[in-house]
């Protein structure tokens, strides 16, 4: 994989930030600079709705703004004294794009609006920043665009959050966080910690700098590049390992229930619950069903299969003996398939919105 592609991928960026928040001794295998600076993970993908009052005010202007946003991460520091909203982006966006609508909804998360969004006392007064993370670019356009969108809102009388960006750069087999974008504003302590740029990861010449992914896959991220293939593999492995765990734990004779929704939920650290509500549940269930059928193909004589009763979706496998169980485990182990999320399905059903995750 090309390192430039990796560091530009929002799922890499998101997982890198999660690693930078981990407690790690002696900066190994990464330097957890955010943990070092005292930041903690407050939430992954929190839903932040604009209040009726703000929506009313926006409706009276010509500004295009989402009424609800789900930034990738929210960090906190010193309890609830400081918050940093983080959004990972693959590419620049202009003021007319869908991403700009989301940016406005995030920029408006100030004061009372923010406190209501995350259930703080209405009168609380935390420091709040909005930070965009993307691949480093020497162009100032990126932060410039954000500042421009922010200025537009200010001009028509809205309070906005201070906004800045952090770049991810790859140089000489190292990954750096950069803060070299004059116009934007990131929290003072973060600025001091990162300086102009700081090395957070070192990797070998012939290896990809991908850390273990806590969040391996997202339906809204483009599925076409090489790193997406890695994400798809991880998603597949997590489904197969959860499948094999169910079978491995069973003592024959036993009927094992494979509920697709449960399996998908376990394999996505419960994020599937969210995606299911967004009409991609059916597509993922079908892909999961096909993957499981493929995995069990080599041992069809070793179990009796039945559909789970409605409304459950899945199958039950009746395994009679230890030998049958071993044959099923072998069949799953031998499965070799790279592409299991079908492209036509993804194009048809996954609502890909820019690179929003």
């Amino acid at each position, binding site marked *: 994989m090309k390192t430039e592609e990796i560091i530009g991928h929002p799922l890499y960026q998101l997982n890198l930030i*999660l690693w930078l928040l*981990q*407690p*790690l*001794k002696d900066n*190994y*295998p990464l330097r957890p600079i955010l943990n070092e600076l005292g930041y903690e*993970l*407050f*939430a*992954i*993908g*929190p839903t932040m709705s604009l209040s009726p009052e703000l929506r009313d005010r926006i409706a009276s202007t010509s500004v295009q703004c989402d009424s609800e946003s789900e930034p990738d991460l*929210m960090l906190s520091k010193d309890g609830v004294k400081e918050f940093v909203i983080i959004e990972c982006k693959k590419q620049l966006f202009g003021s007319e794009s869908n991403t700009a609508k989301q940016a406005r909804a995030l920029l408006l998360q100030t004061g009372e609006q923010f406190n209501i*969004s*995350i*259930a*703080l006392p209405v009168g609380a007064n935390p420091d709040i920043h909005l930070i965009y993370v993307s691949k480093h670019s020497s162009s100032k356009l990126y932060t410039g665009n954000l500042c421009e969108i922010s200025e537009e809102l200010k001009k028509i009388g809205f309070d906005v959050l201070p906004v800045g960006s952090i770049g991810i750069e790859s140089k000489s087999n190292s990954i750096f966080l950069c803060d070299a974008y004059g116009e934007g504003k990131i929290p003072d302590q973060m600025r001091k910690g990162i300086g102009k740029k700081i090395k957070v990861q070192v*990797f*070998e010449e*012939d*290896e*990809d700098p*991908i*850390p*273990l992914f*806590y*969040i*391996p896959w997202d339906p809204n991220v483009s599925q076409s590049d090489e790193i997406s293939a*890695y994400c798809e*593999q*991880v998603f597949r*492995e*997590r489904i*197969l*390992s*959860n499948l*094999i*765990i169910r079978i*491995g*734990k069973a*003592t024959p004779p036993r009927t094992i229930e494979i509920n697709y929704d449960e399996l998908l939920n376990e394999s996505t*650290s*419960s*994020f599937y619950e969210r995606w299911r509500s967004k009409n991609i549940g059916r597509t993922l269930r079908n892909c999961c069903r096909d993957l499981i059928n493929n995995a069990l193909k080599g041992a069809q004589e070793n179990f009796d299969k039945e559909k789970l009763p409605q409304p459950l979706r899945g199958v039950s496998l009746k395994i009679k003996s230890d030998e049958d169980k071993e044959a099923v485990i*072998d069949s799953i*182990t031998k499965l070799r398939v790279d592409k299991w999320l079908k492209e036509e399905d993804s194009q048809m059903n996954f609502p890909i919105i820019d690179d929003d995750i």
Partner: protein
Amino acid sequence: MDIGHIKNREQAIDSLSGYTQARKDELDKKTLGKGLVKSYLLETVPANSHEPDIELVFRNIGMPLGRIDETLYTVWNTNEKKHFGFLEKLIPRHPVIYTMEDSKDSDPLVKRLVDNTHELDRLWISGWTFDRLWQKVLEINPKYRYGRLAFEHQSIFEVDSDEIDEDDDIEETEKSESEEKAGLYVESRASRFTIVDKLETIQKSLPKLQENYYPLHSISQLRFPSTGRGGHDFYYNGKVTNRSDSFTDHRAHLLYVLKIYKGATEDAEQKAWYSIEKTTLQLQGKFTTLHGAPVVMKFGEPISTQTFEKWIASTFQRKRNRFRLWGNPIRLGTNKVHVYGADRHLWQSIFLEITNKHVVAILPKGTCGNTIHRLVTNIQRYIDPGVDVWIGEQNYKDLVSRATDKREIKYEN
């Protein structure tokens, strides 16, 4: 020895004690005729999971238990049509088997027993855990007493052979007893090394020896001197041989070590368990956040590409591999793979980054802390005896010390 007539705890303990005394007398006269009392320390499930019905587990694997009282049972070997020994639920999560069978019979039987159910595992006492237990031995015993330490490191992934003996752990633990019977001791491997000397002598010499010879960090056996004569030999795989003249003293030592091990395991789990959970800490909001810390095992020196390849192939292309892992490695470089797989013995999830410089493990919540102990034990034995292990910012070596201090586990003998 027939134990079929035993009806209560008193008779059981008397029988084990009498047997112990007789064997100790034989040992002293170097005329050992029967097997010593051996204890096998087992592990069931993480503390917050449902503890399996131990009677059902043993029945399913063809070794039904006969209840003596609430925590003590006889163990029947259906295949051999005779009693194998006793099982005692000494503390929650840790049943112990006591047997008088010869190691050559009991070791394979216990191995089969554990291999045949995901609800039981053996204790995996890593070199680092032994290192801390050794400090306890020094703290609680007079320095003129004799101690015994064995070290074992086999660089099996450096050899060009596909045959890896899965029963090696049996071979090793039975060796010392059979050697004793034969009255001789043979060093069969260059990396196997035993010290028997006064505690003060070992205490003085060991740090220097370890500094000069790295495999000596991989302690695989430790003797706790008994309060009377002899001692209790703890092996890395949870087997303990009673070479003392007291079964009561033996049992007290098992309890002491089990409490420490349980505390260390629970601390490791608390620290390491990764979960993405919805939290409702706020008054109204529901947020998803992440808990837990990665386990980082860093090698002193990078291992060679050949060793790395052999290790990955032996582990993930073999059903019965030493590390008891399942998964399909995702290649991310010559010396780097990711595995989103499972502990093949306990059938629980584990995510691993394995490179020629380190292993990083993420343990999803519920995955047993014993998986960490097994990983560390096997890495010390086969990859790097001096591997540096951290769970977040907590040093693995200190888990044992912390477990004893925090829980105020006292040596009561």
